[in-house]
């Protein structure tokens, strides 16, 4: 059975030919797949310029890879037939970063929910349409009577983003790609939105790709994580191991830079790894992207790009510090993921129980007037 969606050795280069100075390698030789059987939650973490959004856009068919291909049910995304393409547009949904820009201010909220129902003929009658909308909104913890008929500007960012989740749910997709879905909403609302996404995964069996720069929330929601740095995979695997015991020096730097909400914990930043080793003299374009900031950089780091080393059953690291471990070819990377190695849905966590309790409370309390956003 082919994967639901698969990126096969994809490379994306922006800018002109080889001699063009503005040529930017946004993502290099990356492979990744999402199973259609086991619903999974995978995070893609990276800073700006890491290639995480480029990857998302290629998985969505919004950008074509320069090399390699993206497959949907085994077929090249760029060459899908009309009916396959339609099915793809239904199976794979996206939630973007900015909950303010995705709404047309002239239409009521209903419009954004009615459009997919009409386009995909999900209901024939007016009542059927309404029932679908109500069911979706309630699944993300929003009271339909409070938002239907209102305009986008009357709602808070958190509400708008949850309506986007409800819109995605309407189509019962197999995969939702969420690109920084909470970076523009208040911290107190983040948990609620991520919770509603997690709920779709557990209750409706929808896989989730969570793209973020925030390691803390990635740690909270996902099972497996991929850390990207300047277009290359630095480290991937079980989120618990990667975040709590990072191997790649870049992941260590990233984890050490998170300001933890506890005044007694250290905030080491660059002190977590130390000063860069110094100039190694790069020749050619095969090298570890992190070498110039890495305190452990060795001559071999600028001669070839480090392959993936299979350091633990559930993780790989692209760093020569781990060259004692066996290599794992990039296309097999996802085979180490926990989600690929279990039968059925992920185990229930306490997170979801807490979430249920919370959704009830928010339904009770949400009759308060809308805030005047500043």
């Amino acid at each position, binding site marked *: 059975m082919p994967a639901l969606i698969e990126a096969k050795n994809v490379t994306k280069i922006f800018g002109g030919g080889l001699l063009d100075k503005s040529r930017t390698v946004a993502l290099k030789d990356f492979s990744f797949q999402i199973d259609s059987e086991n619903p999974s939650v995978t995070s893609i973490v990276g800073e700006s310029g890491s290639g995480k959004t480029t990857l998302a856009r290629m998985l969505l068919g919004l950008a074509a890879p320069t090399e390699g291909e993206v497959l949907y049910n085994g077929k090249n995304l760029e060459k899908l037939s009309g009916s396959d393409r339609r099915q793809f547009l239904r199976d794979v949904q996206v939630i973007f970063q900015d909950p303010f820009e995705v709404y047309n201010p002239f239409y009521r909220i209903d419009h954004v929910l009615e459009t997919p129902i009409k386009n995909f003929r999900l209901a024939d009658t007016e009542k059927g349409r309404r029932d679908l909308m109500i069911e979706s909104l309630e699944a993300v913890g929003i009271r339909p009577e409070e938002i239907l008929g209102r305009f986008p500007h009357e709602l808070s960012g958190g509400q708008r983003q949850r309506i986007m989740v409800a819109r995605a749910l309407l189509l019962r997709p197999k995969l939702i790609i969420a690109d920084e879905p909470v970076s523009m909403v208040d911290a107190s609302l983040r948990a609620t939105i991520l919770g509603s996404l997690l709920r779709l995964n557990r209750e409706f069996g929808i896989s989730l790709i969570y793209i973020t720069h925030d390691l803390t929330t990635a740690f909270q929601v996902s099972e497996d994580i991929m850390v990207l740095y300047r277009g290359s995979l630095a480290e991937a695997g079980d989120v618990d191991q990667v975040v709590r015991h990072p191997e790649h020096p870049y992941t260590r730097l990233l*984890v050490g830079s998170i300001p933890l909400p506890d005044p007694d914990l250290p905030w080491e930043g660059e002190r977590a790894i130390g000063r860069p080793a110094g100039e190694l003299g790069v020749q050619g374009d095969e090298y570890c992207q992190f070498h110039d900031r890495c305190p452990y950089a060795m001559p071999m780091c600028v001669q070839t790009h480090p392959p993936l080393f299979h350091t633990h059953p559930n993780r790989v690291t692209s760093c020569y510090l781990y060259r004692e471990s066996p290599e794992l070819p990039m296309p097999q990377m996802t085979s180490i993921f926990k989600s690929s190695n279990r039968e059925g849905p992920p185990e229930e966590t306490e997170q979801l129980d807490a979430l249920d309790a919370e959704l009830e409370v928010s339904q009770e309390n949400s009759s308060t007037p809308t805030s005047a956003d500043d």
Partner: protein
Amino acid sequence: MVEETLSAEEPKAAELKETLKVEDLHVYFHTAAGAVKAVNGVSFSLKSGERFGLVGESGSGKSTIALSLLRLIKPPGKIEGGHVFLNGTDLVTLTEEQMRRKRLDEIALVAQGAMNSLNPVRRIRDQFILAYKDHDIDVKRSGLEERIGDLLTRVGLNREVANMFPHELSGGMKQRVCIALAISLSPSVIIADEPTSALDVVVQWQVMDTLRSVQEDLGASVILIGHDMGLMAQFVDRLGVMYAGKLVEIATVRDMFGDPLHPYGQMLIASLPSLESRKARLEGIPGITPSLLNPPSGCPFHTRCPKVMDHCSSVTPILQEVRPDHWVACHLYEEA
């Protein structure tokens, strides 16, 4: 004119001195629908050399406070009442010209989007020179060059950055230039309004580390405004929690994270994700911020409070010191 005001003092005396004292500040925005009470009776003070944090959700009034302290509130916004004492002078009563001279010289701002606050068609050097000219500083070109270079090195940048244009710098570098500009006249108070919210986490650490070191060098006080509790925990000494235009709790950072008293503060702390355990509850604060146009009567948080009592909706609680250095505005802590 650019003398450092604090360097000669004994550290102990400096500790006792209040650099900034805000008393019962009210800032309203007058809209067609009525007055939006963005800041509604806020008082706090800042000791010299202290790092003070102001947290709150968007719309809680924290950025309005920042602009009010600099008297940069534009119509329809207006400071309706209260006092802002900076080194003993009430800024609210100053003329516009007197206030202009205080800005940068005594109180400076590091704004949220660095890229927006630097002039894109001017070299970094010229942005410093403009600031100096505005404060009538007549330094010979050579001396000036030296000083700009010193300021840039102080924030961890190369001297050559002075010759560059803003677009040649990364976001983190631009934010450091803004810090260098802010400290160029050695102010006694630096207001940093979400100085790193547009930056990556590693760069955020670099910028905050820079801000901390220059602040300690100058002996200046800092007000850090934001909603990232992690940043607050790691940076400030004391923390004030804003809710719907009011300060509901002020405590030392350890007390705030270890033993928050206000129900809102407690929920805020409880909703923080951690790297300790994935079993942590993924929980937000239910409900939404109240409208500032028609704020709820009594305690502004009573509509969302899990511990709400009968009189919470009618009687506004007053910010009181219920434990040493721990202030809270909540009826739960009032003597019966």
